[in-house]
């Protein structure tokens, strides 16, 4: 069940996208999310789509993973698509059947919004699929560094993030184990009336919380024993390195932004 979760998974590889510095990738994706909203006609949306597919190709990620990442937002995509189709009343009438009236502009807007979703999900998925969670938090820590001047605990936030990412699979395994142990004792999570099913969650949650707290305590002790004292004066084992490729990626992004800006109406 849980082993099928693809979203947020990291696939090690050695494509040009994998080799990029996490800082440039984060900046790239963040800026891209904003640039997507520049597109507003067929030409610009086609450019966005082509650009995204180009990056998919360069990253050498199998389409399977990206389409899987799309699944959680599929409902939202379909919903907005239908909303646009039925609610937009512009352009030529395409279909007129009883109460249903579909206009050309509605179809166009529906497709645009779906492409926008697709492009956004693909790009963010590529970020998480090609960058290890540790690199992402490293990148975020460095990028947020200026906020230290405002007394934001940047190092602590990054640490919290990497610890929670690190423990997601552990807690998933734990849930699976406890669930099986309780199922072996006759607890039934998947059938029966709703009230029974809600009650059946208690034997799952209590042990899970107990073990999560225990783990947190053990981890805190282990860190203290090894002399962890927070971010002050701490050096890094993994040095981030900004390459030509990183500069190139950002230049490419600026180029796309400029193109979109010229072709939008």
């Amino acid at each position: 069940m849980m082993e099928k979760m693809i979203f947020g998974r990291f696939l090690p590889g050695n494509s040009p996208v994998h080799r990029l510095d996490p800082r440039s990738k984060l900046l790239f994706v963040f800026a891209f999310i904003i640039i997507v909203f520049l597109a507003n006609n067929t030409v610009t949306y086609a450019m966005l789509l082509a650009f995204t597919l180009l990056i998919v190709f360069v990253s050498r990620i199998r389409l399977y993973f990206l389409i899987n990442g799309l699944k959680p937002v599929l409902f939202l995509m379909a919903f907005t698509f239908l909303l646009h189709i039925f609610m937009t009343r512009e352009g030529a009438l395409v279909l007129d059947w009883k109460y249903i009236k579909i206009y050309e502009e509605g179809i166009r807007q529906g497709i645009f919004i779906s492409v926008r979703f697709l492009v956004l999900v693909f790009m963010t998925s590529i970020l998480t699929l090609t960058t290890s969670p540790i690199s992402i938090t490293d990148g975020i820590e460095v990028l947020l560094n200026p906020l230290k001047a405002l007394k934001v605990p940047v190092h602590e936030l990054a640490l919290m993030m990497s610890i929670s990412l690190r423990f997601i699979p552990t807690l998933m395994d734990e849930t699976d184990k406890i669930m099986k142990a309780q199922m072996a004792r006759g607890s039934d999570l998947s059938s029966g009336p709703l009230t029974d099913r809600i009650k059946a969650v208690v034997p799952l949650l209590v042990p899970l919380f107990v073990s999560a707290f225990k783990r947190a305590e053990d981890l805190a002790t282990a860190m203290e024993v090894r002399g962890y004292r927070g971010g002050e004066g701490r050096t890094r084992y993994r040095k981030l390195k900004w390459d030509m490729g990183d500069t190139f990626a950002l230049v490419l992004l600026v180029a796309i932004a400029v193109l979109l800006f010229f072709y939008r109406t």
Partner: protein
Amino acid sequence: MDIKLQQVSYAYAQGTPFEKRALFDVDFEIPSHTYQAIIGHTGSGKSTILQHFNALLRPTSGEVHIGDRIVVAGKKAKDLKAVRQKVGIVFQFPEHQLFEETVLKDIMFGPMNFGVSEQEAEARAKELVDLVGLPENILEKSPFDLSGGQMRRVAIAGVLAMEPEVIVLDEPTAGLDPRGQKEIMDMFYNLYQERGLTTILVTHSMEDAARYADNIVIMHEGKNVLSGTPQEIFKDVETLKNFRLEPPRIVRFQQKIEQMMKKPLQKVCLTEEELASEVARMLREERAES
């Protein structure tokens, strides 16, 4: 109740790029009222196999017969509750499954899920705390106030309270002190001898397998590769080493003695007592000859 595995294969995350096969055509049978040990190196598929014994996992191909229930690959199996009542599993570190406010309620959780009345479940709990070697006043305490060893015993009582016909033990003594280990293993052995409770011990402790089991199955890389009585299994030390298993200490000790005496003993001894009397007998014979 017999358990029979026929050509059972299992793959985790089947149908995704993360697919990982854990079992390959596993084939063996566990007759009623026997004490069966399943041993194997880490990653040999032991833990995957044991989850098939009460249909927590369903094979990706092959069949599992649990009594008269047959779980077939690819078919939806309904109402597995009856099977789960008959086959109790004590998982590794079972103390992690405790959740109730009191020990009593936690032990009653299993039987009550299977429709046993409250009075009956309470009676079973009272009987079982004694059996697993805990004082009766522990029943009203919170399981989270107990020591690790006591929690383990409560969890075991919780599984036994279902009154299963088959009990599956996955490393039941991992992390306990030597005395606690022996107490728990002896307790299960008594249940097997007195009540004929079919017992399946999944372990990598050769010592426990040698001491308690009637029959041993060896798992290696997802296949059952060897099966036989402890004497048969531990006779051939070289084959065991191929499966990355060390024979029990007592068997290795016997080999040393045989080297010293330059003469093999008549049988493979599985306990200290057996070896001592065997050596004594041989010395007596030698003296009589000379």
